[in-house]
């Protein structure tokens, strides 16, 4: 028994009344507007203060001045934050629906562990030192572990409990390896301790180009899975009776979540908590319908990530707090507040 109270079966076979749908759609647009504002703030705010005029100049009339260069750097950082944020939120929402466990997050399925183990291997045994060099290792690690968890979890007959247990088991083994390497190799420790907190600071256009195709494919796949996952929320038997292909949906959901989270982790290290928290926040006002949860999670996760990144740059000027640290310190209390506010039956 993994779930105390599974997400309530959605009564969404009949479409929601138009007014509620209109409100939700409007909310989505408001969220998008907030996202645009946060993205602009992310470009405008930083160690070097820029006027709005300079930001505009840098964005649209790039002529290579100092301000333009700063805007260019912050632009790639912002774009990466947008992509990674969306990917983390989406993968978290998909995994929570797939495992029917509100505690599921990418870390649970061993994806963070896989990426971390691959990066530490790259540093220690292959002498890779640049961040863009880590990307492929991290992605390969995440993908291999994701696939492994899926097969050990029983592939076609995978149940939520088995998936979670397989993920935990593989994570345990990999973290043992990770710590062994970090204890014996000081060079690896000195690099890994910065990689594991998760940061957007090293974002470059190369990184974005490396992960963009994976993120695009994963996003499309995840959004397309909303309807079958909705059916699966009602329990396997009901879902089967409704004509859902359980195995196909499970396999595709795992694939989507792994690709999304693997690429995100590869790009900027394991940023925990965004994928866990945002779907919870979203569910508190959309209800259990994934056709709304997934788009909202896609829009609101980058708001959280970029907002945290901006804040991290503001509080510790001219240095900065890594975004992974800020999301947790900022998001933790909000998460606890939400958990407390809602009636337990809804959890």
């Amino acid at each position: 028994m993994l779930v105390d109270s599974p997400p309530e079966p959605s009564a969404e076979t009949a479409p929601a009344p138009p007014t509620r749908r209109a409100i939700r759609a409007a909310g989505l647009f408001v969220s998008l507007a907030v996202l645009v504002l946060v993205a602009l703030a992310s470009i405008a705010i930083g160690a070097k203060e820029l006027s709005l005029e300079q930001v505009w100049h840098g964005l649209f009339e790039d002529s290579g001045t100092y301000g333009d260069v700063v805007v260019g750097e912050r632009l790639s950082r912002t774009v990466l934050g947008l992509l990674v944020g969306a990917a983390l939120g989406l993968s978290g929402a998909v995994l929570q629906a797939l495992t029917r466990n509100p505690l599921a997050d990418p870390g649970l399925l061993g994806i963070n562990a896989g990426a971390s183990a691959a990066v530490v291997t790259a540093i220690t045994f292959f002498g890779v030192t640049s961040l863009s060099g880590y990307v492929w290792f991290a992605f390969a690690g995440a993908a291999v572990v994701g696939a492994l968890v899926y097969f050990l979890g029983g592939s076609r007959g995978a149940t939520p409990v088995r998936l979670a247990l397989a993920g935990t088991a593989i994570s345990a083994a990999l973290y043992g390896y990770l710590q062994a390497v970090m204890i014996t190799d000081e060079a690896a420790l000195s690099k890994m301790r910065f990689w594991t907190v998760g940061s957007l600071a090293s974002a470059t256009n190369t990184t974005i180009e490396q992960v963009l195709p994976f993120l695009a494919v994963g996003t499309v796949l995840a959004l397309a899975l909303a309807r079958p996952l909705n059916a699966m929320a009602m329990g396997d038997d009901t879902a089967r009776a409704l004509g859902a292909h359980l195995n196909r949906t499970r396999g595709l959901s795992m694939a989507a979540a792994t690709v999304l989270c693997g690429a995100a982790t590869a790009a900027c290290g394991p940023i925990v908590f965004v994928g866990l928290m945002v779907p919870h926040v979203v569910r508190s006002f959309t209800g259990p319908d994934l056709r709304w949860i997934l788009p909202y999670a896609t829009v609101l996760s980058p708001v959280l990530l970029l907002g945290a990144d901006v804040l991290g740059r503001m509080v510790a000027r001219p240095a900065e707090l890594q975004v992974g640290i800020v999301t947790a310190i900022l998001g933790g209390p909000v998460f606890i507040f939400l958990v407390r506010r809602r009636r337990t039956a809804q959890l």
Partner: protein
Amino acid sequence: MSVRFDVRAFTVVVLLLVAALAASVVLIGTGDFPIPAADVIRTLLGNGDAGQEFIVNELRLPRVLVGLLVGASLGLGGALFQTISRNPLGSPDVLGLGQGSTAGALVMIVLFSGSATQVAVGALVGGLVTGLAIYVLAWKRGVHGYRLVLVGIGVSAIVTAVNGYLITKADLVDAARAVVWMTGSLNGRDWDQVWPLLGLCAVLVPLVLGNARGLRMLEMGDDVAYALGVRVERTRLLLLVAAVLLTAAATAAAGPVGFVALTAPQLARRLTRSPGPNLVPAMCMGATLLVVADWASQRAFGADQLPVGVVTGVLGGVYLLWLLVTERKAGRI
């Protein structure tokens, strides 16, 4: 009150105890100065020569005892948390108690370059404060198991971020020391760690086992337990405090040895194949797991090269995987 005697569970407990004791004897004999098992037993019974007596009683026995006690405490604490939260992932590792202890220890290591004792005290305080914070934050006319887990995850994320920050701020020597501590290690543990832990276990284990019936009722849900005459909130508070104390004390003694609290109850439950919290089997499983892991790490990497936490992670993980595969073949999951 009728007592149901579960033969399989009893056998499992006996076998685990035998395994733990055998592993302890072998572990005492392992090191830079190997001692045959027969000599170890003779020395433990008080008939060894002076040299062996010193090595066994002063150096290696306390370490093994710390290992057994830490493993038992973690196994029991994990079983309590998983039962109360009704989630196999609701172990102290996940709820942030380990991270809380780590934060306390890291503050001592990174900010004050504290001694081993100060680090242990810091870890104990960190763990207890975190446990208290989780309980208070999850309290809302009673603590619902699920809210407890979710609040614990929130607290855990915050504390983990603080820990990550502390490590990036530390210089490399302190960071290396911190990583060893965070992995969980039995190196250099002596009688000073044994006595407090033993005293705590002597009080808490009977207390917990005395309330095992209430816990079993709680598994059926608050309403049913209430109807069956269990004082739900009081039992839960009592058991939670016990679990937090056990986990925090174990962590203070050996560091947050990973995955014992998470895997030991799961493994025990699968071995006994009986429903319910399986408290005693989980406790024995934890002790066995930790001592065997320590022995394995000494054998595989040489004495005191790698901390035991590395091996518990790998061993626990591999065993869990093996169970998953075999149980699937047997069609039990």
